[in-house]
């Protein structure tokens, strides 16, 4: 097994899926000879040619919409949004079309498209290259929103997404691309969409989070272990629809719940997680549900001091877990 970083795992998943199934193709801005601005599609153009690795015009609604058309025909398009922030022009195609095609046609048509987009901050991207956009799409039945937290997960989940019968919005944390490394099997494997994963067992405090925050939470938990604070970490992996059962179980286990997101607090994914807990296992709680999130400002600023103040990190999480443990 080779150690891969997060983006290498993505590239490998794409390559393997394209080899496995001739109906899989990728389209997006700069995905061709350039191999993507982050190099997620590195080498694919050379291997599969321009018919299956399409540099598109700069038009996100067309990238999604053309992909949707091809998916309805029976292909397995993997569309790339260069940055998640630039998915906004494609919202109509994703929400009005992709998410509703199966339901509106009473199961006659379907739309097996995967839309990949790098999200998240801490990369000096400023307001428009740092956003967490999942909340916009996390109220759209018919759509699935997957946000893997590690190289192993990202490979298995991307394969599942491409093979899924329905549209999947696949959000990759761009800071994770080169930051996170781990052993990733060369053989084919998939990870089920819709299932959360316990990334760490613990008894004092339950952290529920997703994406890059899982990494920060692990760092914090390791540190706190030395203080004798034992942290359970549940990685949501799929943020829509949520794995209710896993959430209820993890929350009930310790009775003290810390929900973390890199997104602005109000209206974020973790609000729904809190709602599920307060609906299903309120009486198992020993402390109010605590949410740790970015401040409610439009997006992460560029200047380092501001970016740092906005961005989630292990220290902020450590403090919050400790506070909860001491409650």
């Amino acid at each position, binding site marked *: 097994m080779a150690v891969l970083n997060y983006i290498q795992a993505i590239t490998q998943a794409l390559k393997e899926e394209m080899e496995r199934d001739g109906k899989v*193709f990728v389209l997006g801005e700069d995905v061709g000879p350039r191999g993507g601005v982050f190099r997620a599609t590195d080498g694919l153009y050379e291997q599969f040619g321009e*018919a*299956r690795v*399409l540099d*598109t*015009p700069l*038009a996100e*609604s*067309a990238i*999604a*919409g*053309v*992909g*949707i*058309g*091809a*998916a*309805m*025909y*029976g*292909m397995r*398009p993997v569309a790339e949004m260069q940055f998640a922030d630039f998915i906004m*022009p494609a919202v*109509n*195609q994703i929400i*009005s*079309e992709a998410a*509703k*095609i*199966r*339901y*509106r*046609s*009473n*199961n*006659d*048509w*379907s739309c*097996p498209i995967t839309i990949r987009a790098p999200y998240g901050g801490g990369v000096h991207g400023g307001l428009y290259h740092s956003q967490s956009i999942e909340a916009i799409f996390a109220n759209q*039945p*018919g759509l*699935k929103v997957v946000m893997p937290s590690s190289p192993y997960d990202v490979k298995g989940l991307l394969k*599942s*997404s491409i*093979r*899924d*019968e*329905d549209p999947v919005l696949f959000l990759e944390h761009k800071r994770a691309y080169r930051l996170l490394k781990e052993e990733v099997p060369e053989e084919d494997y*998939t990870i*089920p*969409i819709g299932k959360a994963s316990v990334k760490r067992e613990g008894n004092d405090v339950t952290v529920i989070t997703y994406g890059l925050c899982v990494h920060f939470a692990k760092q914090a938990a390791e540190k706190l272990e030395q203080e004798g604070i034992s942290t359970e970490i549940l990685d949501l992996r799929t943020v829509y629809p949520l794995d209710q059962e896993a959430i209820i179980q993890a929350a009930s286990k310790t009775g003290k719940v810390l929900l973390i997101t890199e997104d602005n607090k109000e209206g974020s994914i973790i609000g729904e997680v809190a709602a599920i807990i307060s609906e299903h296992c309120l009486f198992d709680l020993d402390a109010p549900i605590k949410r740790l999130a970015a401040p409610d400002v439009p997006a992460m600023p560029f200047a380092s001091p501001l970016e740092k103040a906005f961005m989630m990190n292990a220290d902020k999480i450590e403090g919050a877990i400790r506070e909860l443990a001491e409650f």
Partner: protein
Amino acid sequence: MDKVILSNEEQLEMYEEMLLARRIDERMWLLNRSGNIPFVVSCQGQEVMQVAASAALDKNADYILPYYRDLGVVLHFGMTVKEVFLQAYAKAEDPNSGGRQMPGHFGQKKNRIVTGSSPVTTQVPHAAGIALAAKMEGKSLVSFVTMGEGSTNQGDFHEGLNFAGVHKLPAIFMVENNKYAISVPLHKQVACENIADRAIGYGIHGVKVDGNDAHAVYQAVKEARERALNGDGPTLIEAVSYRLTPHSSDDDDMTYRTKEEVDQQKSIDGLLQYRDKLISDGILTQEKEKEMEEKIKQVINEATEYAEKAPSADPGTLGDYVYGKEGQ
């Protein structure tokens, strides 16, 4: 391409299909006004271009992405009259959506009628995507997509046609220019002379035809299809006619246009023009016409009755088909 010659048979078939669409639409209005069905959105005034265009396609291979007025198109591609009424009544057996969508939202996979939504123009990039897929798979087919002229002002029109142009896709974009987008007249929608002039901005062929002239529309689509299959890329066709009814059964068109204007347009109704032509060419006789009308009336009666009696969707199915089977 040389001028296509249509046989008498073909012409009669086309005319009958146009007439069928018109008569169905008229029945819909009756049913709506009598409180039997909640909503109608009409094809009246556009049947000629719809049927003529469809007739120039290969209904056993091509994919169509009709918009809500395209009754003539879906009839040609195999949707039955019964099915049309089932969707008007929003019954469980409706093949378009099982009653989930409003009338006029077509979709039927077995006939390659691609499911559509209400937000206008989203189907345009889909048409490009289907053409792209067909090209990738080396299939000899085209995707044919329609929209109103007002809808050509949406971003998706621009993005879809540009994509198709760059990739020289086998797609035909037909704009059914009926001179209004609900109440907004053409000159408040666009400042260009012709919608077809937009083709040059996408490096594709553009052509404007009289949408009331069946043979002109047929010819334009035939040529566009040939171009597409020859690898010469997409075509933008603007077919001009007029919307003879209000926008829908919820609209009162007298708030924004005059009866005189509508009456004048009714006097040049393409359906009547085609009828007169077929009569004067000796292809249609009074007798044949009567036969046609009777047959159509019977089919419509049967379909109406069937649809009216057909069971409604079961509320227990409300949660069905949000997702398909698991993806692994």
